[in-house]
């Protein structure tokens, strides 16, 4: 088994964060992913969060289904409502709908940096896209990444994160949004 050695690159970290916000399937939410996630928490000394995750997994009859149900409830269609739609425009500079002004601005920013979505009809402001994009800028355009994060990402992510922390029943997404916060917040 190939083992990690040097510190992880920012680009990879963002790809990892993006991955962790995709719909959970057995394909990727597997033991390898899990061990990387726990290593992160270990080295960050987030012991409580680590224990919470281990406990949730150990106590689950079907851990994957628990996370899928939680993802659906938080981010797709849920009771009491779509608690935390993972789109910038639902939270920021709009009236709570998809594809608001910030989504268009985000798409424009991608273009200005020389990128476009593979699925060009997708909503550009989904959290997975925004994290992947941050990762793409991390290596060659850290200044661009910083502008992206401060002007287009953080303002809505803070609200979104608050919603997740308030609404989540399962520790997984609480941990993930805190990890994203840790790697995107300016002052850290």
């Amino acid at each position, binding site marked *: *088994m*190939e*083992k*990690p*050695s*040097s*510190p*992880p690159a*920012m680009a990879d970290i963002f*790809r*990892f964060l*993006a*991955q962790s916000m*995709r*719909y959970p399937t057995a394909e990727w939410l597997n*033991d*390898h992913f899990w*061990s*990387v996630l*726990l*290593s*992160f928490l*270990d*080295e*960050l*000394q987030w012991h409580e*969060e680590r224990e919470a995750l281990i406990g949730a997994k150990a106590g689950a009859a079907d851990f994957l*289904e628990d996370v899928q*149900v939680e993802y*659906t409830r938080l981010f*797709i*269609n*849920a*009771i009491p*409502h779509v608690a935390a*739609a993972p*789109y910038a425009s*639902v939270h920021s500079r709009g*009236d709570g*709908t*998809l594809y608001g002004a910030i989504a*268009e601005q985000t*798409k*424009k920013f991608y*273009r*200005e*940096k020389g*990128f476009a*979505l*593979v*699925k060009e*009809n*997708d909503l550009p402001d989904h959290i*997975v*896209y925004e994290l*992947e*994009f941050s990762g*793409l800028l991390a290596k060659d355009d850290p200044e661009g990444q910083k502008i992206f994060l401060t002007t287009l990402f953080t303002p809505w992510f803070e609200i979104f994160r608050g919603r997740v922390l308030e609404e989540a029943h399962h520790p997984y997404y609480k941990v993930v949004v805190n990890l994203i916060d*840790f790697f995107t917040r300016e002052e*850290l």
Partner: protein
Amino acid sequence: MSVKVTRRKFLQTASLAAASIPLAKVVAAETGFVKNPFTPPGSFTGTQTVTGGVCEMCFWRCQLVGKVRDKKLVKLEGNPKSIDNGKSICARGNAGIKLLYDPDRLKFPLKNVGERGKPVWKQISWEEALDECGARLKAVQEKYGSHDIAMFPHGASAKYPMDFFEKVVGTHNVSEASFFQCRGIRDSAYMATFSVPPDESVDMANARAILLIGCHFGENVHVSHVKAYLKGLENGAKLVVVDPRYSASAAKSHIWVQIKPGTDTAFLLAVMNYLVEKDKYDKQFVAAHCVGFSQFKHGISHASLDWAARICDVPARQIQEVAELLAANAPNVSIHPGRHVSWYGNDFQRVRAQACLTAILGAIGVKGGFVKPKGVKVKAISWPKGEHGGEHNLRLLADLHHYSPPGTPTELIRDACISGKPYPIKGCVIWGQNPMQTIPNQQKTVAALKQMDFVMCVDIMPTDITMYADILLPEPCYLEKYDFIKTGTQWNFADKHQQYIAPRMPLVDAMFERRDGVWIMNEIAKRMGYEDKIPVASLEEKINKELAAVNLSIEQLKKEEGIHIQDGKDPYGVAEDLEVLLYSEDLEENGYPPIPTYIPVEEAPQGYSRLVYGRAPVHTFNRSQNNVWLHQAMPVNPVWLNDEIAGKMGLKEGDEVGLVNSDGITSSSRTVVKVTPGIRKDTVYMAHGYGSRNPLLTVGANAGVDDQELITRLAIDPETGCNGMRNNFVKLVKDGKVLDIPA
């Protein structure tokens, strides 16, 4: 979370050595981005006009264009080429964008891993969803028979699936709300009288007088229909509005008949009797086309002005005034057939009376009268019809409702579900309909659904009924797909006669994993073993084949800006063989009154008031509840209460109240009181389509009161089996105290 290690430190020192694999190996190989050299603004910031939209915020289907900027729909407008709605669309039409981008819309197939009514949803793949739907429907079919699958469809996209279940699977248990809780009575009553379903085919634009029984245009908005109505008024038509409430139409009327609810048939009989007695009917038309005039004359002879005045609680001279006005302007009179007519359970007789009144005024095929437009017929391509006998047809088994609209009366299906008799119904497909808010008595609907082996729903929004689904599938909305082919003529028959054909075409691509009804149904059909019966491979192919029959194609329509226009035909004139059955032997043989007859409805008990409901201009019943713009235009549905009664009850404008009905059912949410002299003392009114209890609707949930929740007393129209929904009586509840309504 406290910060124990800083980001900088982590990035310098972390090794993730404990992980079983390097970080880069656990992430997806590809991102969702491609390198794309930056193109300066201008090439993508411009807004394009996309043609071919057909609105579905209501069933009127106005033709649209979309303003699309960089793949995003930013505005909807009427298609300037349209000879129907023209450049105009209504508030709901405009707000279609908010439906398109509503974050609460269904996005992916969902599986309920909780229980029906208290769902716990999980996103699943289409493959899994379709396999489960196919296998479980097949299991029901094999265990109990095809008839044990019930279907509740609604809207253009449900027609193809409905045909599959009726024609291929072979169940009769299909019930459309648009028939059984809405217009089916109207269609059947006109069919039984003139042999044609009337639609809303009155030539109001060219009428000299218009009679509306309960229609409230202005609050009820369908663009070209309202244009015709307003054109008629502008041209000087006299307007008579029969309504217990001072509606938007009543406000424009020459005569407002503030009728007691449930008594309209008595009113119409008295008008007709007066016309006959005073020789003010169209003798020539009656002689040429009407059957059974003498029996009819004799049968309505009891309906004097005084008789009706007592029943309807309106002055006799006002009924006379209406009759005189209609006679003076005949035959150029629009007796509007109505649309939502399922009111009291005596409705077939009322609507038949409207048809008979139209006939004795000679108001058929003439300017301003009942005139069917001559549009193009485009035949829908659908599933082949199999051989299925009538032995499991609940309506035939019960030997009831001989004038039922197509399908099976909802009540018969629901009763069979609950009782298991004459056979159990164990599979349920709900496609675009929300029976929780369309079918009275929600407790019975819940009981029917809970006993099913399998329930699947297909919808665009998480409506109340979707909480009872085992599998919930997302469809694209009308702005994202090909669909229905709208045909018609110019809206004003005084203008050059033209016909149009406008297939619905997508203005933007469907987002998420939404799939259209043809694709979904075909996939389920394959899994149920009916692959050989599939008539078309895709919705696009279906529309293209249908268009080919009139020498058109999608490609051609795109060139023609979404609407094909051709010369039309003069719609006026009466077929020589038109027969109007003023007296119907067929009705008599089946045990129903052969001439229009007034059947009294139950009176409100002491302390209660009759609850009537209607439309709001910014909503299409419950379908637009979650639309942010529309919600903001009218967030709740105030309950109209007579000012004198409100004074006696100590209520004032804006007071928050709930409602409780005579069966003890209390509204789950509250609304505000509208104090007005514009409603009878024995009646309260509210707009329908509020107060959803599905918390997935972040805007519409618990906003206003759901009148349907309070409609627990069922009246069944005997001829048609349709529901009457205005026989429920309510009190108001303020600060937890139940208040009698001292009518």
